[in-house]
């Protein structure tokens, strides 16, 4: 019969239309600013710099090794190494970034900087409401704007942050043991010289 296929299709549409009043599974959207779907843990938007403790300058994990700057595909990271050194979390003297800018109008959220960072210093944020009317300065983030605490990192990526914390703690234990060993060796050497 001519028109049978159309009627069959109409029946499907009607089923979907009336179904949306009864079945929650057929309601696929939410009304955005009022209702929000929580982001997935793996969600990524733009990178930020992690710091330990309270002071963002003292606790900055980044040692300005410039690997991320080199590996970044669209070259949106700009780093200037410091002249002097400051002790990092393990007590070792390290450089720090005197300047660390990310142009998030260029960044394409590919996460390669996070993958290549050997110091767990750069991670992906989940903040996405970043629109601004200042299209040049407003989207060029400097190191102060990029610095976010480890607590924040734990909040947005709990499972991933737990792994990173465990890894850093293990490294610290190792470094402490090594430092203790060298200190003891020094004391022994001094004692030996004395005798």
């Amino acid at each position, binding site marked *: 019969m001519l028109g049978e296929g159309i009627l*069959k299709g109409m029946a*499907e549409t009607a089923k979907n239309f009336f179904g949306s009043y009864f079945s929650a599974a057929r309601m696929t959207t939410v009304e955005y600013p009022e209702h929000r779907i929580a982001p997935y843990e*793996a969600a990524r938007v733009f990178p930020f710099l992690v710091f330990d403790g309270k002071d963002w300058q003292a606790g900055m994990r980044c040692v300005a090794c410039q690997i991320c700057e080199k*590996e*970044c595909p669209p070259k949106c990271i700009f780093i200037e190494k410091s002249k002097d050194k400051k002790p990092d979390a393990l007590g070792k003297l390290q450089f720090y970034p005197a300047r660390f800018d990310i142009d998030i109008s260029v960044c394409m*959220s*590919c996460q*390669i900087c996070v993958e290549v960072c050997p110091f767990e210093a750069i991670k992906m944020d989940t903040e996405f409401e970043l629109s601004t009317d200042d299209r040049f300065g407003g989207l060029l983030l400097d190191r102060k704007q990029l610095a976010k605490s480890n607590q924040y990192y734990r909040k947005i990526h709990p499972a991933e942050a737990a792994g990173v914390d465990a890894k850093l703690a293990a490294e610290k234990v190792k470094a402490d043991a090594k430092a203790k060993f060298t200190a003891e060796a020094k004391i022994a050497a001094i004692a030996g010289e004395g005798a």
Partner: protein
Amino acid sequence: MSIAETNTEKFEGWNRPAPIKLEGEGELLEVAMGPHHPSTHGVFRMDVALDGERVIRLRPVFGYLHRNHEKIAEGQSYLASMPYTDRLDYICPITNNWAYALAVEKLAGQEVPERAEYLRVILGELTRYQNHASSIGFLIQEMGATGTPLMYAFREREKILDLFEELTGARMMVNYMRFGGCRVDASPGWLDRTRKVVAGLTKFTDEFDRLLSTNEILMARTQGVGVLRPELAVNAGVTGPMLRASGVNYDIRKVDGYGIYNRFNFRVPLGDHGDVYDRYMIRLLEMRESIGILQQALREIPVGPVMSPTARIRGFRPKRGEAYGRIEAPKGELGFYLISDGGPNPYRYRVRPPSLINLTVLEDMCLGVNVADVVLIFGSVDIVLGEVDR
């Protein structure tokens, strides 16, 4: 008028073919469809010469979305091109990743662990499913059915994109595959949710089938329109659902058996007439085959690492040589051709995009049809301009 005759016309100025004059009839009407036209999926222009409603000549004009992808890739490390491949065919980024990773793995002789291969198949088939569903939706939209089938397809696509986001962190720009495996492992919870989504896909495919396949308007508009002969399809290098709709049995998953595809039982649907309706039907049937592959892969996926221990992220320098890696992407044969001179970046990097090569037969399919059917035939090719222009 044949194509050979129109090609001999002298060009005056940039890309402007001379007006065609018919004996005793004056000039033809030339219409520029696009680059901003509701029927073009991106910025693509068709210069159509019309005799009344009939198409006499059609010239595709490419390049509005050219991003210099190949040259950029030649100046960067192998890894840095991976996120750019997401942006070629942005409807199916996973298969782009896969083809590129396959080419580099061939170049470097890199092994891929079992679990990573299964994850690639699962994600690749999910991609194929959502690509075919939304491309059918777009095709029907171009016939004037604004919204309904497309929104139904997008409702299902949304579920698949949610799975992608949960695993890779992004809905579309996934940047997931690495040379020698995949970036992150899938949790058991993710696999369970995928099983649940895949279980729902059969129901959706049936719904889509009932909604469209026997619709008289769709049949009247598409059957016998835009016929592509198998000889021409083979000669023009057309691949994917377009080629199979013309009746040529060529599926790289079967021919090459790349990855672990030779372990899966699936059939290759073939068309009879090579018209728009066959292309629609092939996509629908391939969606069903994809569900079968997905169920099998989700049942058999082993535990283990997802990255090969010999894989390198930084300082990756494959030895001198060349490699061509190709896969059956949802749109056709997607290949990456790489030449390495032993340095950190490829000496030559070339993409063989299915969208562009399938578009080359557009004029042959459109000659003599009404101008309203041009839109339909163009929609049935299933292109993404990000891949056509690169």
